[in-house]
């Protein structure tokens, strides 16, 4: 636990990263690999307390990104690095490919331009297909499909294990992770002094990766606001594993100006998700689901893949995109204050995180603080949770199966609780192991899981009674 508690205030870090979303975790890793002494501070009880908790888990190619944009460069760089490191880190990849589907003549008219833009963006494997040809690659698609663009290299990943792996590697390289440590105020006097809820910290440079609070954190660091976060909610339904056989590929709609639109997509865990919506809201924290919206998603899913009609719902969730008044990534460098802001990473952050991290280390070079990479990099490998690969329950001596829907073993749960970056809350334990995330949503295992987590995770369902009794 020592590496994730607050450091003594006299320590001077090379880099303080603010926010442990997927971007902050990737940035912490890249700086640690570059040889920096890193501290990552997070407001929440666990990593992924913001936008990164809930997304579609697609590893994008950038085929539809604005040409010539920083976003395009970083999506491509991030994706390339993911593909290169993922086997070493034990991260899954579903090489599903995607179909951008035209259901109306108007949409069909746009496909040529979509393919053209994708090629111009340097993406390989783009093909215009007739409806029949597209359906030959995915027979479950509705017969009303007119035509499609195949984007062979859009893939699916595990959105929770990836950032956890980045941070675990950073921690293995000596980085500090401090949770429940909201940044309150930063002052620069040649170095940074950061006041946090977990105590003060000193650092030579800061990286703001605060996602949905990127603008707030910039202000707290004393910078005039350059952008304003305008949260955009996306709701999802997750369908039973029985749906997986019908959805071997990512089904994308023809995008509009505002959003990529409703996607039907397999998950790394063998489910299918339908979503997200795109709903502007003021609130940066509450990500509620609404019955009518969820019903509409179910209906849309069944229109796209008719066999999904009546498929049981496993889970529902909503995420908030850290959008701003501008579509572009809002990256700012204040060299004189040795500060980097990675803001407005709206809807491609999972794909671009490793690219953003490379970019941040590149920008840091201008600060005149040379870093010396470590001689060796410790090996880090996360346990596999993805369905197509071997799982712990298939190996001997796992103790017992605790979660029957997702087949999570006691050994896996204990390993997560004792890991280098242990879960800070019950949700974190679920994301690290998948326990309770299946079709019964804890009917059979929730109490058992809470018992195993007792005393090891701050917030479990049983603490209610403890409060009362003590």
């Amino acid at each position, binding site marked *: 636990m020592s590496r994730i508690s607050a450091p003594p205030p006299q320590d001077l870090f090379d880099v303080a990263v603010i926010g442990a979303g997927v971007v902050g975790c990737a940035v912490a890793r890249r700086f640690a690999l570059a040889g920096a002494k890193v501290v990552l501070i997070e407001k929440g009880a666990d990593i992924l307390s913001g936008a990164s908790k809930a997304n579609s888990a697609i590893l994008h190619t950038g085929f539809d990104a604005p040409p010539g944009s920083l976003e395009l460069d970083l999506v491509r760089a991030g994706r390339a690095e993911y593909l290169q490191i993922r086997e070493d880190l034990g991260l899954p990849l579903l090489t599903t490919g995607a179909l951008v589907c035209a259901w109306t003549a108007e949409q069909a008219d746009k496909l040529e331009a979509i393919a053209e833009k994708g090629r111009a963006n340097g993406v390989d494997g783009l093909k215009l297909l007739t409806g029949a040809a597209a359906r030959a690659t995915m027979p479950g698609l509705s017969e009303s499909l007119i035509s499609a663009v195949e984007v062979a290299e859009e893939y699916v990943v595990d959105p929770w294990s990836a950032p956890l792996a980045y941070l675990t590697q950073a921690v293995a390289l000596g980085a500090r992770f401090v949770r429940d440590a909201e940044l309150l105020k930063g002052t620069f006097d040649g170095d940074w002094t950061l006041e946090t809820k977990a105590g003060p910290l000193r650092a030579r440079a800061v990286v703001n990766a605060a996602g949905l609070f990127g603008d707030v954190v910039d202000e707290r660091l004393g910078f005039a606001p350059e952008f304003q976060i305008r949260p955009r909610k996306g709701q999802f339904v997750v369908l039973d*594993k029985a749906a997986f056989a019908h959805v071997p590929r990512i089904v994308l709609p023809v995008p509009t100006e505002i959003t990529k639109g409703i996607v039907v997509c397999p998950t790394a865990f063998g489910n299918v998700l339908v979503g997200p919506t795109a709903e502007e809201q003021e609130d940066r924290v509450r990500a509620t689901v609404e019955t009518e919206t969820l019903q509409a998603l179910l209906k849309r899913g069944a229109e796209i893949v008719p066999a999904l009609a009546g498929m*049981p719902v496993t889970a529902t969730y909503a995420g908030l995109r850290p959008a701003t008044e501008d579509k572009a990534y809002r990256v700012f460098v204040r060299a004189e204050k040795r500060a980097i802001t990675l803001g407005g990473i709206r809807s491609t952050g999972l794909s671009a995180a490793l690219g953003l991290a490379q970019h941040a280390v590149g920008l840091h070079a201008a600060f005149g603080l040379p870093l010396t990479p470590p001689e060796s990099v410790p090996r880090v490998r996360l346990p596999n949770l993805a369905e197509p690969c071997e799982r712990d329950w298939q190996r001997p001596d796992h103790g017992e199966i605790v979660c029957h829907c997702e087949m999570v073993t006691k050994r896996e749960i204990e390993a997560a609780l004792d890991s280098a970056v242990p879960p800070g809350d019950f949700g974190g334990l679920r994301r690290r192991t998948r326990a309770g995330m299946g079709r019964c949503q804890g*009917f059979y295992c929730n109490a058992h899981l809470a018992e195993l987590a007792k005393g090891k995770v701050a917030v479990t369902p049983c603490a*209610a009674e403890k409060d009362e009794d003590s």
Partner: protein
Amino acid sequence: MSGDFSADVIIVGGGPSGVGAALELRRRGVARVIVLDREPDLGGATRHCSHSPFGMREFGRVYFGGAYGRRLTREAADLGVDVRTGHSVVSLGMDGVLTVANARGVETLSARRVMIATGARETPRSARLVPGDRPLGVMTTGTLQSYVAFYDQMPFRRPLIVGTELVSFSAVLTCLGRRVWPAAMIEAEPYARSRELYTWLPTAAGIPVLKGAELVDIRGSRRVEAASIRRNGRVSPIVCDGVLLTGRFTPEAALCRQSPLGVDPGSAGPAVDQDGRTANPVYFAAGNVLRGLDTGGWCFREGRAIGAAVAEDLARDGDAGAAVPVAFDDPVKLVVPGLLRRGGLAAPALRDFQLRVTRRVRGRLSLELDGKTVWSRDGAWMPERRILVPIPPDAARAEQVRFRLAEDA
């Protein structure tokens, strides 16, 4: 021939129905009967219903909580049933070949007949599409009862109880037994889904029972802090620290859904014929996996009856033939058996069709065989009430079997 198999019969699930079947199979001299259950003990859902008496019908005395499962364990041991707990069946193969996971890893078992007796569970928050935040403290009765029965924990002090099925009142008892006073009990329908009579229990304890009230919001960041309900068009907040979603049972039939057996769209469990035989004649099913919830005593007897049919099926030659589906429309929710086979056993395991309706309806329920009405009755039909219609002796020879429910205008 039986030498190629791990057993004559494997039963998946060691609740009342599965063990009831195993005991009957052994009594009828079937040599090798294995019961597989993924939990550490037999008993199924009865293990956590600490306050409900079980066993009166099957054993002539009552048991509470784990004691009932221990009685099942003793009976099974006395009759030489091979009970394997901590064994989770992960897939069903076509010829009675099962993939089974246990603490040592994965193995394959096979049997001449397999019975699915995996029970039922309540529908969770997600599948009900409940709106709002997603904090800790939103759970089903089964989960709550597991906290209490297995770990002596109470996850909240003032829950809102959603639902008025039988199990909802069981939830009230669990709360009161731990000196926890629910904030209210709400029901979306204008009537209690089980029996109106039961509402005396919360009412006597001072818990408001609000009918025609819908859950429209849950608030809370880490834990539940409040909920909102809509009643008579008005939305009002309810201060609570938990939301208990009760009932709406659904068969635990993922194994069937993911195998060629499939599930019946009405019951969401495997469809069976009058002997408990599924679409694949190697597989049988019994208990709550057939329909959602019935009582423990009912499931035990159903398990015994279908167990007897399996024993007979093993002893005879010849197959049961093609299955005729039993048709029905809304507001009928499900019919068990949902299949009939001409070549079934001389004395079928199930004597009655069991029906459920989706909502309270008044009208004429009728059964047609080949377009001719052979049975009908006028009545008021309640959603959580078991409706029994005797299976006419010649029903299995019909080409078309259909239930109709004509609602009164």
